[in-house]
């Protein structure tokens, strides 16, 4: 499920979502952080919705599998969307 450099180019990630917008996870491009995200339920094929942003725009909260996760923008960037 890891993507190579070329595939990542121009690929949409959770970072690019607007509040209330959803997307479907297609990959995680950071192996180590990917493990943590996988365990928290960010499995490829799952729908993810951007729920809110912190006062200064970072971190954000997302809804995956009906629960809310909070994460930083640079972490959100590693969750690639279809």
């Amino acid at each position, binding site marked *: 499920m890891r993507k190579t450099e070329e595939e990542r180019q121009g690929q949409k990630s959770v970072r690019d979502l607007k509040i209330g917008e959803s997307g479907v996870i297609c990959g995680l491009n950071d*192996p180590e952080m990917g*493990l943590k995200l*996988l*365990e928290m*339920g960010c499995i490829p094929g799952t729908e993810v919705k951007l729920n809110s942003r*912190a006062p*200064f725009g970072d971190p954000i*909260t997302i809804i995956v599998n009906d*629960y809310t996760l*909070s994460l930083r923008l640079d972490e959100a960037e590693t969750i690639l969307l279809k």
Partner: protein
Amino acid sequence: MTVVTTQPDIPQVERSPVQPTMAKIALIGNPNSGKTSLFNQLTGLNQKVGNFPGVTVDKKTGYSQLTPKLKAQIIDLPGTYSLYPKSLDERVIIDLLYDPASKHYPDIVIVTADASNLKRNLLLFSQLADLLIPSVLALNMVDVAEQEGVKIDIPALQKELGVPVIPMNARKGLGVAALKIVMSQQLEATKATFFEVPAELKSLLQDIKSRFSLNNDYLALQYAHHYKSLKFLSEQDVAWMDALLQETGFHSITQQANETVARYTRINEMLLDIVRVEKADKAEKFSNRLDQVLTHKVFGYLIFFTILFLIFQAVFAWASYPMDLIDLGIANLNLLIQENFEGPLVNLLTEGVIAGLGGVLIFVPQIAVLFAFIAILEETGYMARVTFMMDKIMRKFGLNGKSVVPLISGVACAVPAVMSARTIENWKDRMITIFVTPLMSCSARIPVYTVLIALVVPEKYYFGFLNLQGLVLMALYLIGFLAALFSALLLKTILKARERSYFIMEFPVYKMPRWKNVGLTIVEKSKAFVFEAGKVIVAVSIILWVLASYGPGDNFKEARQKALAEAQAQNLSEVQTENRIASYQLESSYAGIVGRSIEPVIRPLGYDWKIGIALLTSFAAREVFVGTMSTIYSIGEEENVSTIQNKLRTEKNANGDPFFTPARAFSLMIFYLFAMQCVSTLAIVRRETKSWQWPLAQLLYMSGLAYVMAFITYQVFS
């Protein structure tokens, strides 16, 4: 199918004779799955924490009466999402579960799972099931999930999992009785397999199994992942594993990722017919609406600082009533004893032991009030919002949103606060947090602050409720917080990063606090303080009394004669004579000698040798300062002055003016704000950082800062 030879021959030998003695039960589950509530329900007040109080860091154990005849030992493990630990906190788990030969190895694990997040909670369950440890699934908050439209077919789930599933609500205590009955039965590991070990690893795992005489592929796989951090493996074992894994090209991260995905696929298929969702999304919608206000860019911070302000006012104002009672009670007790008995032992008891005990007990109301607030903030889920709001700001200072919890806990006590920094996975963020946390004003500084504030700051009210003394106290806390931030900034530039910083965490839904948990936290913290710090305080009080009441050789004896002769020559009254004698004796006592010898060093800060004595004795624990001052000034007072404030107020300098001027008092407050006067903190930092470098650097840095800042304060105010 994986060839998993079922239980019989492994540690079963150890397990079977356990019933007549005591069953060992481990409690494990995702964070926020109600694990702590269940632990509290099972054990009540019958629980103990390790040496130092920590939230979930240390292994908490307790006892539970399962049936009238059967008692079990319950071990509470830190919350985790999987058997692949991402932080030091979670590492405790693998140490316990991967060593079947250990005497702590559990007979049963209770896996707590939140019914509304069943899928994710079952990931951990499935891993434990594959380790073939007999288990029970405590399906928590089934009623809440049902209200939200999540229906779970429990008989079907039980059949699929192959272990008992107990629906419960741990907050209300529902289902706990059923769980106890199930645990009192002879339980077996499930026959179901949730993950098939990849075929290409089979021969590798075979080698591991035969070397460590294991009978389970999945456990062998766990050895391959974790061998470097398993404490019970020898150096040769580790070297052997290194070579083996090198040779077979085992890639841990890829294997873990594949495993997680495979498990989720299996769980998803399994739950297809078991869980039915007709979601109303009520709680989430409510939480989201609340978050729009509570994490708002203006109101969010406004509310946060209002809450902080409320806490400080509460600690200062509310706690003062029980504190006055304790203070008065101790004073009256001493008076009663002194009026009715006589002799050196009476002095030891009243001026040493009871005075010291009073100095310990007086903190309890403040600790209770403070921890009530912290527990409520954590219980309601608000603490996660604080972390969320503060992350970007904290990162600028080299900290982490998660650093807010240790920093705020540091307001109570640096010891548990430093331990709570374990949840920060990133090494650099964690070290910086640990380093600066003791700069936050802890509860042990409160007595120093309050005694000195009450001495020099008038008790005035603005607008009927803003207490001037409370405002000064808040300013001191603010200075500590700023000092922590700027020290962090300094360290950020010095330290080199070892890894990237993570933030990902679950954002809990707002909940009502569980009052039982809040109550237990208060009891646990107060108890820990009284017994941990109390020992030091009472011991130091006694040693100090001895040091101040005896001196070396003839000088001490001559002090009395000299004072008497002077008194006669100057025609002093009886009280003045006694006063003169006591003060000369103190000067020539052991304590006086030490205090005098450091006086030149501390004079620029406005301190005399009496304060010098207090600085030295409170090196072990800063709260000792008040006890020491109280003891020093109870020797040689004019009449029976009862409270510490009055003792200090009556102290005069050579010209007969009050000794404790605002400049002196503020210089002292600033000194205690910055100085690392706490042996417990040094010890915990050494333990958490596994080196002496960190606590030593902290000691030097903080003491140096304290000296410079107190010097500036004294010069500015006088």
